């Protein structure tokens, strides 16, 4: 017997509305059809109507989870257009906040994944650990989610000695918590039963379908935009975390590895924080031209296309967010899986629908 089940838009495991029309043959999904548009606002058009400096705060609201990296990526684009050289201290501070964002995002994603397979205790514990990261962000910038600390030419806020000590203390707490939680996530028998071999995406398909971020790295593709050494990543030394399992478990392993790696990166960045001013002044509007800028978000590579005609408003701003690229691999994974695994597979790619639709 075949039937079509609408999965979403309001569904207990989905924090955001997206609908997947699942065609089922008994318990097996034969095809999945995404229905988007529940969060489409029209941000790209709004960015053309606002001033290019206001856009730095507008793009922060593309997504509330990786907000800082969105505004950082946009600022890098405008800096490239205007040929601004960002001071080294600002570069290091950008790394610190990016990595704090990555940590909170990965803790959030693994927590939601745990909730999807019914391990509510683990969800609660991971989110409790996440609050330490949120505290670190709040202590350094004054906000938990929308940091607003990145601006064109540098950063708006500094981290002083006292804040540095606070962040390092919080990192120690997070590391201690993770030492207890990660073995449960990665070695528990029943967790493994729900993750290993579920949502297979082999390396060839991942490449063909254009997968990015932990989805690609879980399938053995060593692809991380931080390798290009933007900001201060080049000086900090960086190697992507890659797993070859090609399943939901491998993607979770990648996130767990990146959590520990991020702690390390923040520590190193804070340790080597150079002394310089925080931002360079600039005059006038960005000159005419087109620029493409990419950065690595918790979910993968984000792509910004900016076109300026020398006015104070941009001609075109285009955002391609990681979940948009991961949509096609997700559909490939869903084909052939069983209905109870659908929620786990969706959350294993860590979808961010508000990014996707903007």
């Amino acid at each position, binding site marked *: 017997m075949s039937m079509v089940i609408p999965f979403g*838009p*309001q*569904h*207990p*495991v989905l*924090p*955001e*509305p997206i609908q997947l029309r699942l065609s089922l043959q008994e318990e097996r999904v034969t095809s999945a*059809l995404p229905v988007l*548009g*529940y*969060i*489409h*606002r*029209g*941000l790209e*058009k*709004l960015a053309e*109507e606002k001033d290019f400096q206001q856009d730095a*705060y*507008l793009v922060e*609201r*593309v*997504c*509330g*989870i990786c*907000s800082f990296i969105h505004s950082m990526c946009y600022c890098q684009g405008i800096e490239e257009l205007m040929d601004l050289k960002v001071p080294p201290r600002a570069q290091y501070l950008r790394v610190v906040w990016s990595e704090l964002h990555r940590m909170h995002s990965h803790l*959030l994603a693994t927590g939601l994944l745990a909730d999807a397979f019914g391990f509510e205790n683990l*969800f*609660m*514990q991971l*989110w*409790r650990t*996440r*609050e330490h990261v*949120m505290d670190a962000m709040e202590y350094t910038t004054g906000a*938990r*989610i*929308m940091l607003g600390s990145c601006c064109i030419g540098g950063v708006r806020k500094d981290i002083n000695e006292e804040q540095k000590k606070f962040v390092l203390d919080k990192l120690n707490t997070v590391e201690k918590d993770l030492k207890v939680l990660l073995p449960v996530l990665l070695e528990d028998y029943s967790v493994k039963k729900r993750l290993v071999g579920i949502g297979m995406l082999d390396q060839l398909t991942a490449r063909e379908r254009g997968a990015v971020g932990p989805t690609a790295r879980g399938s053995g593709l060593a692809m991380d935009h931080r390798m290009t050494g933007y900001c201060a990543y080049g000086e900090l030394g960086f190697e992507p975390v890659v797993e070859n399992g090609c399943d939901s478990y491998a993607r979770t392993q990648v996130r767990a590895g990146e959590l520990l790696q991020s702690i390390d990166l923040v520590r190193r960045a804070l340790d080597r924080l150079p002394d310089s001013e925080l931002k360079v002044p600039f005059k006038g509007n960005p000159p005419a031209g087109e620029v493409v800028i990419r950065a690595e978000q918790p979910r993968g590579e984000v792509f910004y296309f900016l076109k300026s005609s020398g006015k104070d408003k941009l001609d075109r701003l285009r955002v391609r967010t990681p979940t948009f690229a991961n949509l096609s691999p997700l559909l490939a994974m869903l084909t052939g899986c069983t209905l109870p695994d659908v929620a786990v597979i969706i959350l294993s790619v860590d979808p*961010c629908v*508000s990014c996707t639709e903007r």
Partner: protein
Amino acid sequence: MTKATAKSPWVVHFNCNSCNGCDIEFLACLTPMYDAERFGVVHVGNPKHADVLVVTGSVNHRNRRVLKNVYDQMPSPKVVVALGVCGATGGIFADCYNVLGGADQVIPVDVLVPGCPPRPEAILDGILKGVEILARKKIDTEVVPPEKTIKIVRPEPKPEPADESAKAVS
């Protein structure tokens, strides 16, 4: 009945057009640091079980029917808590072409929690405020849907018909 409901309000969350900021702050309310459960707040997935509807974000053309549907499925009495400035007016996105405005364009809103995003403490406060209102509402409270007009923009007919061979999916 009202006393019991006020001591343990069941909350359903619907993300309308939010950027996720308010959503994750709402979820953070449920976790051990803020622990909404100490006030008896339970997060449920089914609107038919819920007393409080938490809406994040503004309303757009596609999700306004879904929001209305979720609201209509909830049993009376019920209250609506709108989180963030987007839920109130549309916030930074108010000028977007696909944004109609706050949640009050479609359903009656009882509590607005300001902020972009609001802090978890403020969200908890807003939900408890909503529960106070809930306790005062009678079971047979008549819910009057807002008589607001929504601007509907219809395109002019397309100059050329779509390709016949293409499969239509909608």
